């Protein structure tokens, strides 16, 4: 998956929200608004790392009838009309139940560019699934935090093929504040590691200020909760993206 040199902007949306078939249209809008790649969230009944907004959109998406098979149909549709890289993000249980190999095979066939599975812990991935991911050549994108030990970050660096997802702070998704001095210092410590893999920052990016801050240090930002809220508030995608990118 190819990223720009800098200022990559990625949007997360829950597949199946607000309507079951919203994703293809939203992706088109996002592409027109200048977004660099998309994260499509596979809704789960018990999203442990997510705040209230993504919990809510997940529940609505599930009630709308979203499943992995439906999602794959939508990905196929999106891929026909768009060159934007698509990363799928979902908790491990639905993927495990679907069948990890079957899932990876489908991803490969559809040209999915990467996967984010927040609760597939690194050791478990390495022990049980790494070989399978490599067979199907689907990069797994790992999360790190500013508190992740350096040797663990180095392990992640070695295993990462697309980018590393840096979680901005110790919080579930949707935290809304500016970055503190301590957070910026922690970012700088990660920056100083000079990782060979691009770093995208997510969790808590909700306006131009937070977007700018992380883009100045890293390769780009991922926005989720703020975008989902803007959908609920009937803000147009174009206006939302213009506001964030500035």
């Amino acid at each position, binding site marked *: 998956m190819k990223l720009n040199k800098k200022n990559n902007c990625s949007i997360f949306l829950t597949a199946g929200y607000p309507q079951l078939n919203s994703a293809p249209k939203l992706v088109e809008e996002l592409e027109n608004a200048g977004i660099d790649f998309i994260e499509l969230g596979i809704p*789960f*009944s018990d999203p442990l790392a997510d705040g209230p907004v993504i919990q809510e959109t997940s529940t609505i998406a599930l009630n709308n009838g979203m499943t992995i098979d439906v999602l794959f149909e939508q990905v196929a549709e999106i891929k026909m009309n768009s060159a934007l890289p698509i990363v799928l993000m979902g908790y491990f249980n639905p993927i495990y139940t679907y069948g990890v190999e079957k899932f990876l095979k489908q991803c490969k066939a559809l040209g999915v560019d990467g996967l984010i599975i927040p609760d597939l812990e690194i050791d478990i991935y390495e022990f049980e699934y790494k070989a399978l991911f490599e067979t199907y050549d689907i990069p797994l994108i790992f999360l790190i935090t500013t508190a992740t030990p350096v040797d663990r970050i180095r392990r992640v660096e070695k295993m990462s093929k697309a980018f590393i997802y840096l979680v901005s702070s110790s919080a579930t998704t949707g935290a809304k504040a500016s970055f503190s001095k301590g957070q910026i210092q922690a970012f700088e410590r990660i920056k100083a590691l000079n990782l060979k893999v691009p770093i995208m920052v997510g969790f808590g990016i909700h306006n131009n200020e937070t977007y700018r801050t992380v883009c100045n240090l890293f390769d780009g930002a991922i926005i989720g909760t703020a975008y989902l809220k803007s959908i609920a508030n009937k803000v147009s995608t174009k206006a939302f993206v213009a506001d964030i990118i500035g």
Partner: protein
Amino acid sequence: MDLIKPLQSLKVRIMLIKVCGLSEESEITELANSGIDMLGFIFHKASRRNLNYDEAKGAFIRNLACEKVGVFVNEEFDYILQTGFYFSLTHVQLHGNESPGMVQALSRYFKVIKAFSIHSKFDFRVCDLYPSADLLLFDTKGDLAGGNGTQFDWKLLDSYQGDIPFLLSGGIGKNDVKAIKEMNHPFFEGIDVNSKFEIEPSRKNIPEIKTFMEELNKSISKTRKGYYGEFGGAYIPELLYNPVQELETAFERIKTNEEFKSKFKHLLRDYVGRPTPLYFSNKLSEKHDATIFLKREDLNHTGAHKINNTIGQILLAKEMGKTNIIAETGAGQHGVATATVCALMGLDCTVFMGTVDMERQKPNVQRMKMLGAKVVPAESGSKTLKDATNEAIRYWINNPSTFYVIGSVVGPHPYPEMVAHFQSVISEEMRFQLQEKTQKMNPDIIVACVGGGSNAAGAFYHYLEEDAVALYCVEAAGLGIDSGKSAATSHLGTVGIIHGSKSLVMQTDNGQIIEPHSISAGLDYPGIGPLHAHLIKSGRAKSIAVTDAEAIKAGLDLTRIEGIIPALESAHALAALDKIELKNKTVVVNLSGRGDKDLETYLTKLNLAENEIE
């Protein structure tokens, strides 16, 4: 009485296996592919297994992707360094009288294993001089430096008090599986095998090594850290990696710590009121033509077994310097037990509880508030235990310095093991109480209810390896197993991941967790602890489902015949007695809690029944 005993058959560790003295390329390839953790090469001219190499073999070894250990005996620093770089070794093992300085210097380049020859007069304090070693290796003292193929008395290891993990070495062969399995030293990391698996020096008997590994894997149900068979593990978001790691390290330290054990024991005795009685129920025995005992966990302070675990975990939290405690609760018993111990120890306490449960277990909500805890309603999903657990985990992610006291044998490793460990006092007591009352330590049958399964884990713990003791997990069938309103996880569940561990989970075909139903808030959970999933799947334990109505009836019956009002959870275990062949058997039912919290539910049903009669 030893209140804390490590769980033998379900040891939580990766058993590291090193095969030493290799030379043949075909053997090395085969071992590297069969899951051996470390391959050992000997660089000691006096050894019959000294590695004779040429450039081709050098390149071959360099290209191996596994952990490679070079064994040296009193060699010069430069020689070790050069050899290590030449073969790109990951570890060097020092088997002579190398100094601590040497170990430290080499540890800048490699992981270092320092070997010691153990004999009856060996002073283990010597090991403390080598803090930079990554691993120690305990071998037998003999005539030859670097391994003699004989065993030392492994009991001597009890005197090793250090905290560097060690490998056991010296004459380990295929007949040692049982002894290895029984090793319960907290820093026992794995084994090193060599001469007992050889056809001739440095020619290994590969099939025999493989069989040995299989045997070892079979007898130790968990070869991977935190697994019970295929279940368990720590499926956690990276945000929880540090807190879980910190907890695991702390738990490993206190598990065998005498001071901790003694504090725990004293609180259980003087504060909780343990041991709880093992009460012979004449009426139940007559009814079932059996010898039936009730293990009276309902007589614990706060009215259930839950406090055994909260005392243990909150003592641990204190040790770790934590000041904020959080917990999830279903029936409220774990919440009350957590709030109680927090009050005792002066810690802040926040309890997450589903709003449905807050309604049906009101007295416990009031108790928690009175004890000074903050009760946070969980409004998502089914608004019961599952959702309370979600909220607690989310809070933990947002406040990683908090100590999360999980109330059942669920959650990411080390929780299932830790909770079982603290609850194991139940079966510890049962053993001597049964001995006293029946002249036998073992009953024929143990029956316990299972939501997540903490009281069952405690009641089964010391009997897990006694195959003659039949274990029954009683689950809540709600309105009936197939009614769509049930919490009978082992009947309805499939393998999945819930709250950080792999277990049996009630879920849709699409992997969405199903909202369970049970009249008992403590059993109203769509998962089951990984230990129980393993016990049930492997056939060691049987599972029985009991409906809401059957449980209510059994609870009311016990109230009238014995004057004991059981918790609705425990009433499920009692109801199961009608479904098991009990004739002439000695049976223990774990009466996990008292029913005061359930009066409203009981009375509603009782009034309904009485109205029907009128």
